[in-house]
């Protein structure tokens, strides 16, 4: 990866702001704490930026490539985790229990790297799905196998791919699942 100066400066500024904000929050905005925090915020930001631009596979980061798509992912996620909490709470109070659980393989289309990890973490907060990692593959435990959980997860995957600017060409091929359920 070639590094241009503006890209480096942008990345460094973003990190400086983020880390400074975190330090400010964790120390309840005390002025004395800022004195101690400043050198560490600075060195952490520089280190993080340098590592980012080494361009090694190992240092592939979860730093979002596209802020706008990230906003959409956050909105999508918040809305669906609200739905998920509501759904499971209503189920808990029904009698008899409205559960038709199943454990199903979910073929990831995201390429290997950090994005499947993010995907697996978010799946458990989506309505009616729970991520189970088994032998390096993602399986999904669903509360109701007749719900349209599959469509939700496909959309989630697409949103994550958008944030990290993942080319559709890079996506793994998956047999057509429109006949699912």
């Amino acid at each position: 990866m070639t590094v241009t100066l503006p890209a480096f400066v942008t990345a460094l500024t973003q990190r400086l702001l983020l880390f400074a904000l975190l330090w400010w929050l964790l120390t309840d905005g005390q002025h004395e704490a800022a004195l101690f925090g400043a050198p560490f915020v600075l060195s952490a930001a520089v280190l993080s930026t340098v590592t980012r631009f080494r361009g090694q596979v190992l240092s592939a980061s979860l730093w979002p490539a596209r802020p706008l798509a990230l906003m959409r992912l956050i909105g999508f996620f918040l809305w669906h985790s609200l739905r998920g909490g509501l759904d499971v709470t209503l189920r808990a109070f029904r009698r008899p229990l409205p559960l038709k659980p199943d454990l199903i393989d979910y073929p990831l289309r995201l390429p290997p790297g950090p994005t499947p990890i993010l995907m697996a973490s978010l799946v458990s907060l989506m309505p009616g799905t729970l991520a189970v990692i088994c032998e390096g593959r993602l399986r999904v435990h669903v509360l109701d196998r007749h719900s349209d959980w599959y469509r939700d997860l496909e959309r989630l995957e697409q949103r994550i791919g958008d944030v990290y600017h993942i080319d559709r060409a890079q996506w793994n091929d998956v047999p057509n699942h429109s006949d699912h359920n």
Partner: protein
Amino acid sequence: MLASLSVVLLLAGAAFFLGGSVGMLRFPDVYTRLHALTKADNLGLGLVVLGLMLQAESLAAVGKLFVIWLLLLAASATASQLVASWAQENGFAPWRG
């Protein structure tokens, strides 16, 4: 106005905590219980945090509540996935209705 909105959010949050606990008691196996716990409790916490943010004394406190919620969300999602994967690896078959 702000105070009553805060009360509504706190009550709604408490309702989801109750839902999570009821699910944890009533659901038939470890996987379904994880569903109840992860989703309902995190939503409950989110609403409680939101309600407290409206009452917080400073901007730093608001931000801190938000960071706490974010960290808890990440911790809880990771923990539930670890427990579910552990149960799967150790051969606990899911209950099927």
